[in-house]
């Protein structure tokens, strides 16, 4: 089954995340990952939702999402060229003697040290899913103490974009 990345513009209103998450749960759609944040406009948020499923399922997800009054626009950006990123923070067990070796691995992935403990090192790393997975696997032998990973965020390549239409932008905030 393929993964689809949906870029969804929603009203920045209370409960909108519950509406979307609830819809996925009760219709039996699986969310692979979900990232939410404000856009350049205060009244609009963007949800980047990764869903696993075949074409008819993704079509049904999209149509059901559209029925939510707070959902303004949906784009399946997987149908186009796009860039995507995830951020991970990994706290790895590191004896002082291992630090150089681990730093070397981090360098390969262009990860940065954000904290240092007496027996641990904490890295941040951004990239697409594959790179993040590879970084995680490289550190696993040393002992991962904690791992925090964001959902995927994504954007279309080139001059295409997922944004409000002029008419939508002009319309006052909804209830």
């Amino acid at each position, binding site marked *: 089954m393929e993964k689809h990345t949906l870029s969804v513009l929603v009203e920045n209103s209370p*409960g909108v995340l*519950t509406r979307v998450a609830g819809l996925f749960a009760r219709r039996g759609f699986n969310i692979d990952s979900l990232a939410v944040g404000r856009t350049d406009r205060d009244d609009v948020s963007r949800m980047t939702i990764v869903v696993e499923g075949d074409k008819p399922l993704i079509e*049904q997800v999209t149509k*059901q999402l*559209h029925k939510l*009054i707070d959902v303004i626009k949906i784009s399946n950006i997987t149908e186009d060229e796009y860039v995507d990123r995830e951020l991970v923070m990994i706290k790895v067990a590191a004896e002082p003697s291992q630090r150089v070796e681990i730093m070397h691995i981090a360098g390969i992935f262009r990860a940065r040290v954000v904290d240092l403990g007496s027996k641990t090192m904490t890295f941040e790393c951004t990239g697409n899913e594959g790179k993040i997975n590879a970084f995680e696997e490289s550190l696993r032998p040393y002992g991962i103490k904690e791992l925090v990973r964001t959902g995927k965020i994504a954007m279309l390549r080139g001059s295409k974009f997922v944004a*409000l239409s002029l008419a939508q932008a002009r*319309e006052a905030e*909804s*209830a």
Partner: protein
Amino acid sequence: MEMTVAEALVECLERENVEVVFGYPGGAVLPLYDALYHSTRIRHVLVRHEQGGVHAADGYARVSGKVGVCIATSGPGATNLVTGIANAYMDSVPLVLFTGQVPTIQIGTDAFQEVDITGITLPITKHNCLLKDPSKLAIVVKNAFHIASTGRPGPVLIDIPKDVAQARISFKYPSTVRLRGYKPTYKGHPAKINEIAKLIGKAKRPIIYAGGGVLASNASEELLKFAEAISAPVTNTFMGLAGFPGDHPLFLGMLGLHGTRYANLAITECDLLIGLGARFDDRVVMNITSFAPHATVVHIDIDPAEIGKVIATNVPLVGDVKLILKELLPLIEKVDRSEWLERIKSLKAQYPLSYNRDSGLKPQFIIEQLWNCTKGDAVIVTDVGQHQMWVAQYYHFKKPRTLVSSGGLGCMGFGLPASVGAALAAHPGCKVVLVTGDGSIQMTIQELATMMEQGLSVKIILFNNSALGMVRQLQQYYCQGRHMATHFQFHPDFEILAKAYGIPAYTFRTEEDVIKGLPEVLESPGPAFVNCIIPPEENVLPMVPIGKGISETIECE
């Protein structure tokens, strides 16, 4: 104009031409009821249970075509609405519901009579919101009526904390609605309309499968013209009944689980299936692989999510049924379909609906007599169960909005309160008949008091088999006759019970009782209650067994 939010709300309702609201007061809606006290234009109907209020608003909306309005207090008042909201959501009935909420500062503290009703009703409303900003009241109410009544209609709930209701605002009712995330498509895509016209031209055995969307878009007239223009038989879903004249030669009756055998066979034989405002429900389709196996499927619906949800569609078309049929009609070329219509005629002759009149008073007979007495000039409200299916099979609905029944949710207890709303919405002089069962009516029987208080002349026909007949029937077929918890060991004397409410009551035990008594009951002024004693072992037939295709029915033995 400066006023409280509660006063502004009443003002909003008046601007939306609301004439009747159903409700039940309580602490959290005190400000609202205080504002209603001063309204001269809005009639408040005090129900006996909030579920009755929402069902009554639902019945009112189905008959009038307007938005039904219901008010309940916070906590239990709000939770009592839940079944009724789910019912309206499943059947796409436009409702606006107002619930009281504890004061803003107490929200989230498990305060007395606090419940998160917007959270609870999230999956069963078209939209809902908790009003936090008093200045938004007018916009929120305007949007609610717009959302409830446009596109695919549905219930909208607004939760208003008590302090918000008491806040003072400067009131201005918006003239337009601006919702950037909500723009229903009404006009059908011209290329698709052309494509459908061409498909119809080529089809040898077309059939129209019409659902509740035909009624919601007031497209009955267009449907009749369309069916006659393309010489195609019409079958209705349960929700679609009354959308096409029941005595028309092209009418096949209801299809599906308890549909007519000829409708189900016609579906199986057709080469073009035109779905109009219907959603290929599981009780219609039964077994997906054997549903209309030879047909090209055209699906016209205002809700894009319904298209392709259940079965693959060859030509999808999103839009309003009425507008689309209007555009489609001039494109239709006359095709001779006498062969197909002959086939339909012979199917009808070969497999008529039938029942044994061997012993006792048969429920089917009562419905036939009800039809004979009214000839379709009545609003028929039903509850849920066997009696509901017998109404669907044996009553020939003639005019739109004359059937009020719980389809999608199959909600026992809907009938009596819905009949209260239906009677308030029906034209003066129009008879309102409630056909109900002894199981269903006891779920909401308290609303007899509401009916009497409002002076409504509902004729109640109770099918009394001392059983939960539909479930008993299922147990007969699927549990080898182990009838668990489906026979009532105790019954009240319904005649005395009705009389306690001041309703003239009768008991019918024989066909003669019905032939003699029913016309009298229907012609009498005021309400009436008829307790019909029917055989408990009577089944709803035909019936498609679980897992079978719709052509494989169990017939009347």
